[in-house]
């Protein structure tokens, strides 16, 4: 178990990590999600002991390790840039942490072959890394982290330089591989989609602060504030300022529907209304009951879905629909919103006031 207790890191005048507390369980998968410079790498370096926090404590299984160098701790790290020993074969690269530990020949042989098999590297064991593709090089680095049997495995955007499809495959495999080792597994990414595919728990980062740390799907479904919701949205959330008055939502003189059927209604007042692009429909349905006049901007057709950028008053929204819809730039259309999918955030501090009822909750 790894604990961060009120950890901060200041470099010069800038606060890279601001008062972060979190507990990472053994055998758990933890995603650090946030844009570039939100503090993901800084946080990982503190976890690893590569950097010493300015204040706060890092504990492993209750033991204080703040300031212990990474060498005294059993940590494996994999970076976005593949790092391998160029002069060694893939076999020797994977074996290197075991050799440092002084493992026996037969143990090394077994573990290297096992890891190579899992990461589909068996046929490349005799090559040197420079004769491999980027994906194979990164798999070599991952195999080395795997055999190390580290208690803490830190992967910093490990798939960012790989091809889309390869990423898709490794995303499915990686959590499974490392879950079996019982290590605390930390994975940094800028992509909401990747966090969702990995599952586990997600810490959303914003400017050095962890805004929320919870099960991944819960952070996605019920973000504690607008900032977290935006960090965890791709495509971006549609947002607008509204007034709630006796259950009715008004954006200026435009009606945005009512929260009539929703029980836990917050108090009347000003809110930020947010909803996801795929919850806007081009047809009126039972759920999509709120018509809104919009002007079409650019559309993007992926072959199975269509992203339509629209302007509503002074707001820009994205509508994501199934199938192929051809609409022309400048067309006036009506889009339909589903109030059961609305989020309301406090217009004062951005905190979540109302979240959609999710399937998971409905099932409980």
């Amino acid at each position, binding site marked *: 178990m790894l604990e961060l207790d009120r950890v901060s890191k200041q470099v010069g005048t800038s606060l890279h990590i601001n008062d972060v507390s979190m507990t990472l369980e053994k055998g758990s998968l933890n995603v650090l999600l946030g*844009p*570039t410079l939100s503090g993901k790498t800084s946080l990982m370096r503190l976890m690893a002991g590569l950097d010493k926090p300015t204040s706060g404590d890092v504990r492993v299984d209750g033991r204080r390790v703040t300031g212990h160098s990474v060498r005294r701790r059993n940590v494996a790290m994999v970076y976005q840039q593949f790092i391998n020993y160029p002069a060694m074969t893939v076999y020797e690269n994977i074996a290197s942490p075991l050799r440092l530990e002084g493992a026996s020949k037969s143990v090394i042989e077994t573990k290297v072959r096992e890891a190579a098999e899992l990461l589909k590297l068996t046929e490349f064991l005799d090559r040197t890394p420079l004769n491999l*593709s*980027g*994906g194979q090089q990164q798999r070599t680095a991952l195999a080395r982290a795997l055999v190390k049997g580290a208690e803490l495995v830190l992967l910093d955007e490990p798939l960012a330089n790989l*091809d*889309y*499809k*390869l990423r*898709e495959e490794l995303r499915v495999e990686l959590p499974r591989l490392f879950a079996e080792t019982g290590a605390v597994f930390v994975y940094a990414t*800028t*992509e*909401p*989609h990747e966090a*969702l*595919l990995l*599952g586990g728990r997600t810490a959303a980062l914003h400017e050095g602060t962890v805004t929320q740390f919870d099960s991944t*799907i819960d952070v*996605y*479904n019920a973000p504690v504030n607008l900032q977290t919701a*935006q960090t965890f949205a*791709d*495509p*971006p959330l549609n947002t607008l300022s509204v007034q709630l008055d006796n259950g009715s939502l008004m954006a200026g003189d435009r009606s945005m529907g009512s929260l009539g059927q929703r029980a836990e209604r917050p108090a009347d007042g000003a809110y930020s209304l947010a909803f*996801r692009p*795929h919850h806007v429909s081009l047809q009126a349905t039972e759920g999509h009951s709120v018509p809104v006049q919009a002007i079409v*901007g*650019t559309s*993007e*057709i*992926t*072959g*199975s879905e269509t*992203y339509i*950028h629209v302007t509503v008053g002074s707001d820009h929204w994205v509508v994501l629909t199934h199938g*192929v819809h051809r609409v022309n*730039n400048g067309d006036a259309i009506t889009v339909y919103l589903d109030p059961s999918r609305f989020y309301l955030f406090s217009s004062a501090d951005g905190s979540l006031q109302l979240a959609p009822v999710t*399937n*998971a909750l409905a*099932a409980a």
Partner: protein
Amino acid sequence: MAQITLDKLAHSYMANPKNDNDFALKQIDYVWEDGGAYALLGPSGCGKTTLLNIISGLLVPSKGHIRFDTTDVTEMSPEQRNIAQVFQFPVIYDTMTVEENLAFPLVNRGVDKAEIRKRVGDMLETLELTDKASRRARGLTADEKQKISLGRGLVRYDVNAILFDEPLTVIDPHMKWQLRTKLKELHEQFGHTMIYVTHDQTEALTFADKVVVMYEGEVVQIGTPEELFDEPAHTFVGYFIGSPGMNILPGSVDGHQIRLADHGFKVDKHYDALAGLTEIGIRPEFIRVTDAAGAAGKGVPMQVSSVENIGRHQIVRGKINGHSVDAVVDEDARIPAEAYAVIDTSRLNVYQDSHLVRASR
């Protein structure tokens, strides 16, 4: 702007290529229409960068010709071809201001001052950088720098084509969204011929009118995003486009009967019996996962091994008669313990030795 003709183009990095396998780019014949938006899509090593380098003039092909309209440019340097290029990493001058950076390609070509001022002003506005016009590029974020790179590529109206080599790979998701849309807008506005290289299907599909899918040096399909999704010409395209990709299952066809994963289905189309390896493709989006009642006799049993809730939808992974199958279902769908897969048989594609076979009637 120009139409670009690839005439029996092929390239090998070897001095004396002996057979097809020695070619990084196998023969391609194609005409890129004037004003079209094209994407070259494929995994690393598929030959897409080789093709782009031939178009830009960084590489002279071992075989064939390339023409801009009627001019043979095969041996011409990039400068002589009058093209603009945008790369993965921003190429800008850190010591110049944003404005000066955007003006640079125009100043270089002796465009007159009033015209430069107008175009740079327009571009600053389009890129939403007007407020940073007189800032030096040095202090800007990576996203902003890449925006300037895009602007430098787009600021000249007289280029034959604009080539993009993975321009958004290093950009964060939110900004990627904005820049991608911006690029599409700029294409609609100026009508340049644009060629965009990427391994990212979302970028390729949303940007391009026509996507060129490459695999092991070969063009396996050129089509609209819709065509690539609905009727992949090759099982590789089925796998590569879509997340997860198309399910490719062993099967057979005979008249109106299609067998896949050891289940028979009657379809409206008619297929002649096939020799060679027959496989059936079905996109995960066209498989519904439900219980016995929901299937109403139309489903086949599916052993579900995992359900990944990825927010917008759920990916159901499992097996049908021992064959791995993925399905994409609605975010609200409940996956029953005893699950049935209902396959939309109008969406089945038939493959013989990896190539699409169309119905005979």
